[in-house]
């Protein structure tokens, strides 16, 4: 193709000059883009390990166990449930450093059952020490005003009165973590440091209705370990719960359904949202425990997809009957 230099007022020299200038400009822009491009993403600080994972706190010898104890006294049902699983000594050994992950999400009074009841925190702490635990730490990340949440729920006093240490979610306790095979928890800040020197982890959750996920139980309880603007995960709530259950392999989980929040969860606010379901569920399989909890809320597993997803991911079984749960009443 031959250019006609008279057709657009450009001669060959002018055309070549402009072509060269345009080429240089494009090359410079590309070079600048390449210069600024960060192919590695956010850099880790000197304290961050690139492949942080939480240790596996599950107890092989304990196997998959579950106990369901009915009764009005949550401390008595908790003690009986543990006894039926072989006693606290099955889970806590002399010298263990125990972390109790409670639900302290809201600065609301204990009577509203939006948070873990202080009475079982005291009881569980005492039980751990009686089995020889060297230390017990109680923690959660409520995001909004953690000090008020721990104080007004009664959790701080309950923990301290039994000798546990309350750990508030200070900045330096978080580390970016990536869960293997996860799509959501990737390089995301997690309340990691409290786990660093821990040998046993126990999740303690109240049974609640939840506007977004359908239910808040032991797996959803790990949501309180996330930092950052975690509310974006509400858009994919069932997968984030499944990934949290992949992230934490606890020694034991406790689902307190003595008084359950049947409606208007997770905050509730009124006693009329609550029902005395008078049940304490303790187990080593968080999927099975949640599957049973769903039945107390009157919800099917189809209504709570995170349970099926967790089972499919190999975290546990939704068919809790296969664990032959121990049942008792007080």
């Amino acid at each position, binding site marked *: 193709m031959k250019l006609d230099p008279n057709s657009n007022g450009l001669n060959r020299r002018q055309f070549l000059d402009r072509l060269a200038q345009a080429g240089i400009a494009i090359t410079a822009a590309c070079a600048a883009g390449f210069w600024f491009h960060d192919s590695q*993403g*956010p850099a880790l600080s000197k304290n961050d390990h690139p492949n942080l994972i939480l240790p596996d706190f599950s107890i092989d010898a304990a196997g998959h166990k579950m106990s369901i104890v009915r009764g009005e006294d949550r401390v008595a049902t908790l003690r009986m449930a543990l006894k039926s699983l072989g006693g606290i000594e099955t889970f806590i050994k002399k010298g263990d450093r125990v972390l109790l992950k409670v639900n302290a999400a809201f600065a609301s009074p204990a009577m509203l059952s939006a948070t873990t009841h202080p009475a079982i925190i005291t009881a569980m702490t005492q039980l751990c020490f009686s089995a020889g635990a060297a230390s017990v730490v109680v923690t959660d990340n409520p995001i909004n005003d953690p000090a008020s949440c721990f104080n007004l729920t009664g959790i701080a006093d309950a923990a301290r009165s039994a000798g546990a240490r309350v750990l508030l979610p200070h900045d330096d306790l978080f580390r970016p973590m990536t869960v293997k095979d996860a799509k959501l928890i990737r390089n995301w800040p997690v309340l990691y440091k409290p786990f660093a020197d821990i040998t046993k982890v126990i999740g303690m959750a109240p049974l609640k209705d939840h*506007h977004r996920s359908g239910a808040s139980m032991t797996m959803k309880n790990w949501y309180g370990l996330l930092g950052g603007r975690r509310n974006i995960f509400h858009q994919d709530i069932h997968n984030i719960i499944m990934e949290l259950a992949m992230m934490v392999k606890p020694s034991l989980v406790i689902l307190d359904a003595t008084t359950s929040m049947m409606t208007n969860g997770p905050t509730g606010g009124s006693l009329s949202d609550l029902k005395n379901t008078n049940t304490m569920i303790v187990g080593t399989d968080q999927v099975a425990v949640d599957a049973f909890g769903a039945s107390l809320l009157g919800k099917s597993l189809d209504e709570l997809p995170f349970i099926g997803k967790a089972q499919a991911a190999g975290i546990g079984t939704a068919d809790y009957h296969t664990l032959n749960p121990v049942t008792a009443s007080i």
Partner: protein
Amino acid sequence: MLRENKNNSRRQTFVSMVILSILMVIVAGIFMAQSHFNPGVLQKDELLPEPNQDLTSAPWSPHASFVPLPEGIQPFTSTEIFDARNLSDKINGKAELYLSAGFTRLTCQRFKDERATDLWMEAFVYDMGNSQNAFSVFSAQRRKDSEALGLAQHAYRTPNALFMLHGRYYVEIIASKVSGQVPEPVKMMAETFMRNTPAEAAAVNEAELFPAKELVKNSMVLISSDAFGYDGFDKIYTAEYAVDGHSLMAYLSHRRTPVEAKELTSAYTVFLLAYGGKNIAAQLPIKDARCIEILDTYEIVFSHGSYLAGIREAATIDQAQTLAIRLYHRLKEGGHEARSEQ
């Protein structure tokens, strides 16, 4: 030649302006993207929570109240304000309920009653933008077995709390304990708030359009979006009915035009059929009404003027038809008046 150069200059100027405009749009886009950052790819420090108060901090200091207070009630903590961006920091997973209904701002604070040292209460004032949005969140959370209060058209209390609608505000006052002292301070706070907060009356005229017979008291709910799992259904009013020991639901929604109401009726019908519904032949005196059997229940969908309406979860087709006809007659009688009052 001179003319050609002028033409070229104009053309070049035009092309240059276009290119510069595109570059400006790209720059603006980059700035917008930066302002809506992805928290997952930020530096760690930016992701972390704000510094927290130490648990062993000093005793509660005096605070200013965000509303005038009745005698004997004092602020216990400072005022907190949340917007759509951080509402979930306060109420976690329930934030979606408010956000989908048009939430604009939450103001909350805890107070103490000087006469009861161990009693505190927290007031939540949700500014929902308008009274319809406020009614939506009020009705969605209405507690059963509550006691109606005369201080507002939509207000009730439970053993430890008070819930009410005041213009565009949805208000919750929640006490820390149940005792003989709780109801009065909570009610006093609500009354003081109403006296000092101007607001238009929260009229819900759709309430008049539901047939009164066999209507379950206080069962009307406004669903802001995604009603019945169908994303095309927004601003749907529902009401529960108890017929021969069975419960069923009637619903209605005013749309902008009769055409829109009719089209939405058709679209919802298609949605039901796509999820396993079956068309049922029914002789109804309602033009273009559709009767569908789904999951062993019966639904009727129809439109009248600018109203979309229907029946859900009826145990028998007779129950569905009877209620549909009553609802249709109410819309014929009162539909126009209800809208003209708004």
